[in-house]
């Protein structure tokens, strides 16, 4: 599904603080199944996820998504692909404060120009599916950790993406909520979604939901293999 070839990402190129965050990464992510990116902090997991998720362009190397070369697509087109293909779940949930959970879920679909009423209906269905329909009209700052996490998941699903990308999703969750999160991922995997999680939390990469673990260190892949 996604092929990375010899990817390199340099920050602050040509300046004294030049930093090579990713070096020589070649990786193929197949459709369906769950992959975990594992590695210590600063090893380049987030950077690699942002390249995989069409959020950032690599300094060098090639990316293809479903046989389409997207390496040098300008931001304008990458965004469209990102919106349609990926759903993102962030470390801090990153919900927008001051508006309701429902609106937060709807936001990523605004640029599609979908009719407001039908969009609202879909968002409501997603919240119901995740058992937080009752909280739809609450402002997000009043939600508990678990509710905020579910709202963030619903937001990632609103554009019906094929791939779910999560960066350290359990970093701010206790054990019970972390396990709950992995359960939701399991359901999504069963529905046929491809799942990509970066984490150094054993609850994630030791979970039986994960099919494959890619280990990173200092911007390089040190091992990659299917979970037995």
């Amino acid at each position, binding site marked *: 599904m996604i092929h990375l070839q010899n990817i390199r990402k340099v920050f602050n190129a040509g300046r004294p603080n030049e930093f090579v965050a990713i070096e020589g990464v070649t990786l193929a992510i197949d459709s369906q199944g769950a992959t975990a990116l594992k590695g210590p902090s600063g090893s380049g997991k987030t950077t690699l996820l*942002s390249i995989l998720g069409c*959020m950032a362009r690599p300094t060098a190397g090639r990316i293809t998504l479903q046989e389409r070369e997207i390496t040098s697509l300008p931001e*304008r087109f990458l965004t469209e692909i990102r919106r349609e293909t990926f759903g993102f779940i962030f470390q801090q949930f990153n919900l927008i404060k001051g508006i309701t959970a429902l609106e937060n879920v709807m936001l990523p679909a*605004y640029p599609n*120009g979908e009719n407001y009423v039908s969009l609202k209906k879909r968002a409501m269905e997603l919240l119901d599916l995740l058992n937080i329909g009752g909280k739809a009209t609450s402002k997000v700052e009043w939600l508990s950790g678990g509710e905020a996490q579910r709202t963030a998941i619903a937001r990632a699903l609103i554009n019906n993406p094929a791939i779910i990308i999560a960066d350290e999703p359990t970093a701010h969750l206790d054990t019970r909520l972390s396990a709950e999160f992995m359960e939701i991922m399991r359901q999504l995997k069963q529905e046929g979604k491809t799942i990509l999680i970066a984490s150094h939390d054993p609850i994630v990469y030791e979970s039986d939901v994960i099919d494959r673990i890619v280990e990173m260190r200092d911007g390089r892949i040190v091992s990659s293999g299917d979970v037995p």
Partner: protein
Amino acid sequence: MRALEKQRNILDFTLSSLGRRKGKNIALVLVYTFVIFLLASVLFFSHSLKKEAALILQDAPAMTVQKLVAGRQDLIPTHYIDSIRQIKGVQSVAPRLWGYYYDALSGANYTLMVNADLNDRAGEIVIGNGVSWRSAAGKRNQPLRKNEIIPFKTYDGSALSLKVSGLLPFASELVTADLILVSETDFRKIFSIATGQATDLVLQVRNAKELPVIATKITQIHPDTRPILREEILRTYDAVFDWRSGVIIMVLAGVFLAFIILAWDKATGLSAEEKREIGILKATGWETTDILLMKFWEGAAVSLMAFFMGIFLAYLHIFLASSILFAPVLKGWSVLYPHFRLTPYISGYQIATLFFLTVIPYTVATIVPSWRSATIDPDSVMRM
């Protein structure tokens, strides 16, 4: 249809975001409103004065003839009338007597003018609204009424008491406010003007097109005179009022610059929260153009709000609150206009000019900051 729906969704979100950040925007909107209020007041005011002047001059004589001595206006001998009346096309010529009178008691300048109706009622005067409020006798905070007395000081220092026999109607306060109508006898007494002399002459002509020709003939017969056409006065008035409002706008440029710097600063100084929001929107699928669109709607909403509030307040200020803020600057020397009210008049042109002077500079000042905030990296949210 999709594009329209998208605009609507983005606009909705923008407005709700503005609502959420009331605190930040309120100061900006207030200053913006104030700037527009000031500019709009200047424009409305000068424009109304122009209109007023034009209205008054409609009834003014088509031509006035003055006598010049050493380049300054002097009294004109009334025997000039006969020779001017001979010119072809002249319908009538009449002398006028008028002048300014400084009233030391009230510190005001009045315009004294002879009115033929008073000529057989010497000792009586008819006064304008401003005079009735300002004159020494009216000091008790209520206007002078009929039959009260105003003392005048004549040229040699002796006193002359004149009785108010009436008030001038309100129609055009700008010109009648400081006006006092007197009889010819009293006028000549106050200023010691000999009979056979007048302030100027006014002409009626049969055909307005002949005015320039008649004017030339008059200067040929009496080289020491200066004919003035009504059209010319109108033109001068227009230029003077435009000039004054232009000057005030230049003076206000300082205020305006400060406002633009504030706008720039507000637009540049995004709070961490706003940056995070834009980052989230971009990461979850909003394109830079969408954020720019949002910023555009934001600017439009702020501008429109300030624009209409500013115009509304300026309207109240100029047409209902008697232009208290800067009437003295625009109207000139007279201190006589306490109850001065202009006829409300706003044109699309004034609105367009205002728009150019305020909204466009504001928009330009916010272009780069909003572009900057719209182009933050979408992956920045992953590192917050």
